[in-house]
């Protein structure tokens, strides 16, 4: 019955009135990537995952120095210990994930057909904790960022492959993320895209604005301005605050959908995380 319903909805999607006018992730992806390839012809496609370092030779040299012994190494080590520690019920994080949680972050965020919602890696980690009677972790930094750093380190170099199943709810989540990305907000009246599409590669003071393409591939990141490792959600909250908009809740659908859209735009690029940024 449900299947029939989905089939019917899927058919409805094929109707140009809605599907063709806007929500067409595959076409969006192509346009998005080619926009950045044209804007930065000197940057090799896979180098976009290195953000500002792909744009500026001097920054890249400093980054290479720092990456000889990356500051997020403590996070990875701590995250590995946390990841491998048993819950009081004897289960492990590994029990909650495909392939025991190793080498899988390129597939996140995922659409959950049961709830119709997007599950980011942070949410999946907290879902796992809930399943085993543990309180959720702060989604932005600390142990969450460490566990994510470890899991991502096992996926380094794997090709990002975020799937949008043929389910109207998945498309709606994607579209909501897209809308969030392009909507201006805050007193400064900036959208994510203002800085990371139109302004990408430009200098804001001494910083180079990272292009949106490749952006999520390096998360979690150790930002020297933070002095610690943080998740994508932490960066969302920071960006919102920078344009003087009250941030959404860390576990909000708004942020999950935004992460879904952004990660999907990176399909085909390699995971390059955890990363280091100024």
């Amino acid at each position, binding site marked *: 019955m449900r299947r029939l319903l989905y089939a019917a909805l899927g058919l409805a999607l094929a109707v140009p009135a809605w599907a063709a006018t806007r929500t067409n992730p595959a076409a969006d992806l192509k346009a998005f990537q080619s926009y950045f390839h044209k804007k930065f012809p000197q940057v090799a496609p896979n180098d976009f995952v290195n953000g500002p370092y792909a744009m500026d030779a001097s920054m890249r040299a400093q980054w290479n120095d720092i990456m000889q*012994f990356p*500051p997020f*190494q*403590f996070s990875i*080590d701590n995250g590995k210990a946390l990841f491998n520690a048993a819950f009081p019920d004897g289960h492990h994080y590994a029990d909650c994930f495909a392939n025991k949680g190793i080498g899988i972050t390129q597939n996140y965020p995922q659409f959950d057909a049961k709830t119709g919602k997007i599950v980011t890696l942070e949410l999946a980690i907290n879902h796992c904790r809930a399943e085993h009677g543990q309180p959720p972790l702060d989604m932005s930094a600390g142990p969450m960022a460490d566990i994510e750093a470890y899991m991502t380190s096992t996926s380094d170099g794997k090709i990002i492959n975020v799937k949008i199943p043929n389910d109207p709810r998945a498309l709606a989540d994607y579209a909501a993320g897209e809308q969030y990305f392009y909507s201006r907000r805050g007193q400064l009246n900036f959208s994510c895209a203002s800085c990371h599409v139109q302004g990408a590669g430009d200098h804001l003071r001494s910083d180079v604005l990272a292009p949106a393409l490749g952006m999520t591939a390096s998360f979690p990141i150790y930002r020297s301005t933070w002095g610690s490792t943080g998740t994508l959600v932490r960066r969302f909250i920071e960006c919102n605050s920078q344009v003087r908009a009250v941030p959404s809740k860390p576990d909000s659908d708004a942020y999950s959908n935004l992460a879904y859209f952004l990660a999907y735009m990176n399909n085909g690029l390699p995971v390059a995380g955890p990363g280091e940024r100024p």
Partner: protein
Amino acid sequence: MAGSILVRASSDGTATTVQSLIHHPMDSGFIKDASGALIPAHYIEVVQFAHAGTVVLTAFWGPAVSKDPFTKFSFQGGKSGDALTVSWVDNLGNKDSLSTTIS
């Protein structure tokens, strides 16, 4: 402060290159926290690297060394399997040390 030291030492047969990262806030004493109160200075003062019991580098640091300090240097000698020890003490008297082997 157990587990504050990460160190990699590798020998090419004639010389050993050491890279280390120490987990430490290195608070300068000039930064204010969210509530506007000064965070008191808290930084590593002395770090010592020793190869098989002999000091190969002593570092004296002030609060201007970055958080989670990084050090890289190399010394003549040292072969795979030799012991390399890193130890530090900060201005509050905290200390830690780690012994590893050269790879």
